[in-house]
């Protein structure tokens, strides 16, 4: 059971009171439904008919709800708070396939993307080495960077085409909403904090209406029914081989996106977080792909877990999976209420901007925190630095992306996929020439602490071991070396051999001489004033308590004392 961080009120497995649960669920569902703007954009770009657009949106909502419920459910999903939104990496694929072959082609491409995503979950164990914390950190940081553009555009009331002077009412509404969210998230306790986002959004909405920047309902809004049966249907299937690579890549990008959100949530929910739980990520991705397949065969737009929801979870201090279940049910219910969907689309853009800016800021720092959780060697510094720069390149130079071949553009349009791809590639490349085991000889002429510090820090940097683990190992190893050499249990010198894998940081002290005895009961401190064997027993006991595990064995004819530090 992970240890709950002090800033979390309701962690993954906790059960908030029903009223709180409902309000938090509605808060998440409302934010999720705002992102329906993405499939609407795809439909508009592809020139989809009104009926097909309705099916695209309705099916998307239904499977967003279903996926949210399954992903949050511990039995079948990840057992964590993951709320689905329309999947932005699907936007280029949807526009291209809907334009070229209508809903039938998008359904096929969407299915291929889902299968591509699903196939990655079969290799989650192997992917753990590909996604060490600093690579996950790059992905999480770039999730935040990817949110920056749409959030800041809404924050400042900017459109795609420049429209003269900045209208100060937009940033004013955004700033007020953002300040309220931050003030309630940081300074308030109890119930008020849980509703930080809702309060900020409500005040922002009222202010936007007062200042005249809240969108007026369209004339057709009044004609929308409060309750109606959703319209979805089999769109048929056609294939375009030209779009298959884009579909496969979209699936992979979606998996990386999901991994980023899952790791962010794991990190937020566990004060002692050490590494990504890839099995949990795999369960979340599988649930997502099942829902995406459902959406595909009923003419809907694909969905994925929301990074914005992570910002809301952080602001409210509530990561309980049950909140996601309620959010999923509310999303599902929304598919039966055209009026509700219509109302949600009326939330002023600067209010949405404020919420997204909050989420973006959180994700950028959460990613940095992950990146710095391990010692950064020169290799890792360049892996992270170049990867982030690669993502920023496509974010700030969109003309570079449009100048590439069409088949590359879906990948290059996403700063997240570019950064993560470069980080994974560089991480694998820089592993060349690094052995996972290293050793050196220590003699009585050397200072054990200095030797242990220089050797273990150097190896820790090369291997990307966690700083706290290496720092904890150094004094224990130094003590072991000093004892073995000073008591002459080891004759004149010994071999210090370090080994690292993702789970353990092992340091073995290998020497010619007699084995030492490790007492199970603490010897008397008076033993320190006794003979060499008494001192060795005393120190052996201390080593056994200070390392996570002490293993005595042999290496050929030599004695081997291994100090294990869990990583």
């Amino acid at each position, binding site marked *: 059971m992970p240890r709950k961080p002090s800033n979390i009120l309701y962690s993954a497995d906790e059960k908030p009171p029903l009223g709180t649960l409902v309000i938090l669920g509605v808060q998440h569902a409302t934010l999720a439904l705002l992102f329906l703007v993405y499939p609407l954009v795809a439909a508009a770009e592809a020139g989809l008919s009104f009926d097909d657009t309705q099916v695209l949106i309705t099916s998307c909502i239904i499977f967003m709800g279903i996926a949210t419920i399954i992903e949050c459910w511990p039995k079948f999903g990840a057992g964590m708070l993951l709320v689905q939104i329309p999947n932005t990496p699907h936007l280029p694929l949807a526009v291209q396939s809907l334009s070229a072959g209508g809903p039938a082609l998008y359904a096929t491409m969407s299915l291929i993307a889902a299968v591509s995503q699903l196939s990655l979950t079969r290799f989650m164990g192997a992917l753990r080495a590909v996604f060490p914390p600093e690579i996950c950190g790059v992905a999480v940081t770039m999730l935040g960077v990817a949110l920056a553009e749409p959030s800041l555009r809404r924050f400042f009331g900017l459109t795609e085409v420049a429209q003269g002077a900045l209208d100060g009412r937009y940033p004013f509404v955004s700033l007020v909403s953002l300040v309220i969210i931050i003030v309630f998230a940081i300074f308030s306790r109890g119930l008020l904090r849980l509703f930080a986002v809702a309060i900020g959004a409500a005040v922002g909405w009222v202010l936007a209406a007062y200042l005249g920047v809240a969108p007026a309902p369209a004339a057709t809004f009044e004609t929308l029914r409060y309750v109606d049966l959703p319209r979805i249907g089999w769109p048929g299937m056609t294939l375009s081989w030209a779009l298959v690579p884009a579909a496969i890549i979209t699936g992979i990008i979606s998996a990386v996106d999901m991994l980023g959100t899952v790791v962010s949530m794991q990190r937020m929910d566990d004060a002692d977080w050490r590494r990504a739980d890839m099995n949990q990520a795999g369960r979340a991705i599988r649930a997502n792909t099942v829902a995406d397949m459902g959406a595909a065969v009923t003419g809907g737009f694909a969905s994925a877990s929301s990074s914005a929801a992570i910002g809301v979870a952080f602001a409210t201090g509530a990561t309980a999976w049950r909140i996601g279940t309620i959010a999923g049910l509310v999303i599902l219910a929304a598919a039966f209420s055209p009026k509700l969907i219509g109302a949600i689309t009326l939330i002023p853009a600067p209010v949405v901007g404020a919420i997204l800016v909050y989420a973006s800021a959180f994700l950028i720092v959460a990613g940095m925190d992950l990146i710095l959780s391990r010692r950064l060697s020169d290799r890792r510094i360049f892996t992270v630095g170049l990867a982030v720069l690669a993502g920023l390149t496509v974010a700030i130079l969109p003309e570079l992306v449009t100048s590439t071949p069409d088949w590359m553009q879906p990948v290059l349009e996403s700063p997240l996929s570019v950064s993560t791809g470069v980080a994974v590639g560089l991480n694998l490349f820089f592993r060349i020439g690094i052995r996972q085991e290293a050793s050196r000889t220590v003699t009585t002429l050397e*200072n*054990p*602490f200095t030797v242990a510090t220089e050797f273990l820090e150097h190896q820790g940097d090369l291997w990307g071991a966690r700083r706290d683990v290496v720092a904890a190992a150094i*004094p224990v190893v*130094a*003590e072991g070396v*000093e*004892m073995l050499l*000073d008591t002459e249990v080891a004759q004149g010198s010994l071999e210090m051999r370090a080994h690292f894998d993702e789970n353990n940081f092992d340091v073995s002290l290998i020497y010619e001489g007699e084995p030492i005895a490790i007492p199970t009961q*603490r010897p*008397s*401190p*008076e033993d*320190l*004033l006794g003979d060499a064997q008494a*001192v060795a027993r*005393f*120190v052996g006991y*201390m080593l056994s*308590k*200070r390392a996570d595990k002490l293993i005595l064995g042999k290496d050929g004819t030599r004695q081997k004392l291994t100090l294990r530090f869990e990583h």
Partner: protein
Amino acid sequence: MIHIDRIVEGTIVVTAVKGRLDSSSSPKLEEFLAGAPNEGTILLDFAELTYISSAGLRVVLKATKLVRGAGGTLAVCGLVPQVHEVFDVSGFSSLIPIHTSREAALATMT
């Protein structure tokens, strides 16, 4: 590697140790504390001690026995977490009074 200061605070002699106390540096502290029995109440201020090995513990134990043998008292203060862990695991925490800071120790011991 190690720096030792001796400060007299009323009736208490404070020995402040900075750096690392291991087999190469502990003889210096041992020599420094050789006259401890004549000084009555001794406070070892380890606030700036970053590492202590069994050789360092041995010196502390010897000094404690010498001071107590002469009817005096010896205490330590200001242990950083990694040194505190060594005192706890070795059983020294129940053998020697430990104070959180020099000020707290002086307030208790005077």
